[in-house]
């Protein structure tokens, strides 16, 4: 039940895999594969933002896309105006985190219940989506950056070496930076979850009243967790914008929010590795489907989602883990016989 982080094999395996890919990836993959895998890395950072607040803080957000989009636009606008990307990248974390804190304050201090909270986060996302879609006219510009409405902002700068605006990262380097971010994020989140702060989050997830009865300020705690999640989602948005060199209102779409939910569900709520695996598997699947012309792809994806929920309700990783445990438990008995 309570295992120390440094004794958890899974933790070290994940870090080892991450570091191995980080070092070896650019050597063995071709450009296309690197681009492909970079995308999975960015989306993994994004999904962790929800997996953390949902699985380890009990906060369900239908609006992670609001922060993802905010981060993407923040990065794009700031980097176009400043001509370099380091500060904008920090801003892509900071601004959504602040906004998350404000929204969290609004919700948690207003004592909104679960379903209603879900709807508020969804509505906020929709407001962003509506407003950003409305910015097609030339009057909507922030400094040098035209917001562009439905068409979005083209030519978002590629990440550069801090302090050297001319030194753009090539795709291999960008992959390594992003992979490093993912590995660090994973370590930070696991450490955070294992810390006292993390235990309290878990406690709040389990029973808010008891947490308050022990003297923990539930509302403040939830606001902090929510803001951390918002910051991570925003950072992922910034990564997304610079990876695509392009950003459009789809970053604020309901679909984007839903994907985070789907990946977390499919991978398993209450794990971090599961959702990352789900990102890779499901994104690869939708990529492969688009290469074929057999059935309508919406039809297939929708079917897969329904089957997943019905047959693997706990999510991939926990189900796998349970199966392994069951297998282990059975083996000795079989040997005795």
């Amino acid at each position, binding site marked *: 039940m309570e295992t120390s982080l440094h004794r958890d094999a899974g933790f070290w395996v994940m870090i080892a895999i991450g570091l191995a890919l980080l070092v070896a990836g650019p050597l063995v993959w071709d450009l296309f594969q690197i681009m492909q895998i970079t*995308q999975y890395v960015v989306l993994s950072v994004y999904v962790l933002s929800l997996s953390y607040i949902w699985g380890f803080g009990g906060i369900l957000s239908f609006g992670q896309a609001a922060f993802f989009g905010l981060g993407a636009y923040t990065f794009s606008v700031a980097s176009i105006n400043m001509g370099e990307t380091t500060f904008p990248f920090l801003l892509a974390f900071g601004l959504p985190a602040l906004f998350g804190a404000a929204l969290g304050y609004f919700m948690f201090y207003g004592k909104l219940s679960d379903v209603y909270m879900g709807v508020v986060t969804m509505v906020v996302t929709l407001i962003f989506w*509506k407003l950003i879609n409305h910015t*097609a006219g030339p009057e909507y510009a922030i400094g040098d950056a035209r917001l562009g409405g*439905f068409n979005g902002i083209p030519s978002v700068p590629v990440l550069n070496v801090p302090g050297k605006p001319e030194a753009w990262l090539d795709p291999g380097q960008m992959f390594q930076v992003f992979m490093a971010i993912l590995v660090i994020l994973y370590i930070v989140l696991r450490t955070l979850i294992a810390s006292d702060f993390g235990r309290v989050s878990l406690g709040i997830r389990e029973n808010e009243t008891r947490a308050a009865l022990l003297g923990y300020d539930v509302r403040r705690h939830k606001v902090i967790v929510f803001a951390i999640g918002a910051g991570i989602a925003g950072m992922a948005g910034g990564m997304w914008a610079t990876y695509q060199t*392009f950003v459009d209102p789809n970053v604020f779409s309901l679909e984007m929010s839903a994907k985070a939910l789907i990946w977390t569900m499919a991978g398993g709520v209450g794990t971090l590795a599961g959702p990352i695996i789900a990102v890779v598997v499901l994104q690869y699947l*939708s*990529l492969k489907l*688009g290469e074929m012309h057999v059935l309508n792809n*919406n039809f297939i994806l929708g079917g897969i989602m329904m089957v997943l929920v019905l047959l693997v309700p706990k999510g991939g990783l926990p189900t796998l883990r349970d199966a392994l445990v069951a297998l282990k438990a059975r083996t000795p008995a079989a040997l005795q016989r």
Partner: protein
Amino acid sequence: MTLSRRSFLQASAALTTTLAAPSILHAKTDTIRIGGLHDLSGAIDSSGVPMDKALRYAVAELNAAGGLLGREVEAVTYDPQSNMSLYSQYATQLALKDKVDVVFGGITSASRETIRPIFHRYKTLYFYNCLYEGGVCDRNEFTLGTTPAQTIAQLVPHVMGLWGKKVYIVAADYNYGHISAAWVKRYVEENGGELVETEFFPLDTTQFGSSISKIQGAKPDIVYSLLVGTAHLGFYRQWAASGMKGEIPIASSSFGGAGTENVMLTPEEGNGMVVATGYFPSVDNAANASFKAGIKTFYGNDAPILGEISEVTYESVKMWAQAVSETGATERMGIIQELEKGKSYDMPAGKVAIDPDTHHTIRDVYIAELKDQEMVIQKTFNAVQPSDTQMVCNLSKDPDSNKQFEISL
């Protein structure tokens, strides 16, 4: 498109095998490979499917005539599912992994601006085949669809001559709508008319009651529509329901580009609208007759509804193939230089030539009236220049340009 049980089973079987062995998709090597990127599912599949079909038909036609340079032409096509991240992935895949010689595709401006820089970076020739707001300036791209100045410059004076001077614009709230509205305003004023009001609608607006009341209050002579998409069809429907059909006529340069809107409205709702694009199925020439007959035979009951975007897709493949035959190779710069000679090609849409300065087309523009779901051509304008893009783009002077200019009026 209908689906029998048997074809469903075949499809499922195909799905299983392809999932198991995706590599067999890319087995052939001695063919000429071209790429196609059109949304076959998701929100804008109604545009993507006809374009994809036109592309495949063009390829089949080439192969039936013995292929290109004696080699078979193979179309590598993907379905980006109306999803920008898939667009950028497939574009990278086409350029780097499939190593195709040319790519045809992209529908919305957002999708084009996602993939255009990728093809530019990886030096893969690219054709964009939709009517759009204009301004793209990239020597690696050829843009064959009409731009606002081409259609609006003809349509505005035409309808003002027919109906009167007071114009009310209803437009979709995105770049295309805003830029087109600015052009309409300019031509209305140049022709001595008066612009009463411009109203913009988000692309998901379905209820137009309040705007229709406002128009009734303003009493314009002409309603000029720059609305886009299925949701916006509600405008024409509610317009007719308010009894405005026959009271104030509607003109549009955005309606009918895909060729699908006119069949989604009933005759009572659509009749009498006057529209302008670069192609209607009713264009009368030999190339169009054989194009229509050929694609009908090729697809049978599944034949796509034809409109500017599908005809232009067909056109782009044919034009590229002719350039390949002329130069005797698929090499990118050779093709670009060949097309920049500005030769005129006989296409179903009439005579089409590339403007070397902008890589847009100088082409015929048609004005038609909608009658029982058919576009009846009333007037043809020959060799119309893409004057809007010409204002901002000159590839002869600046061949390294790699962006879409904002055309401000």
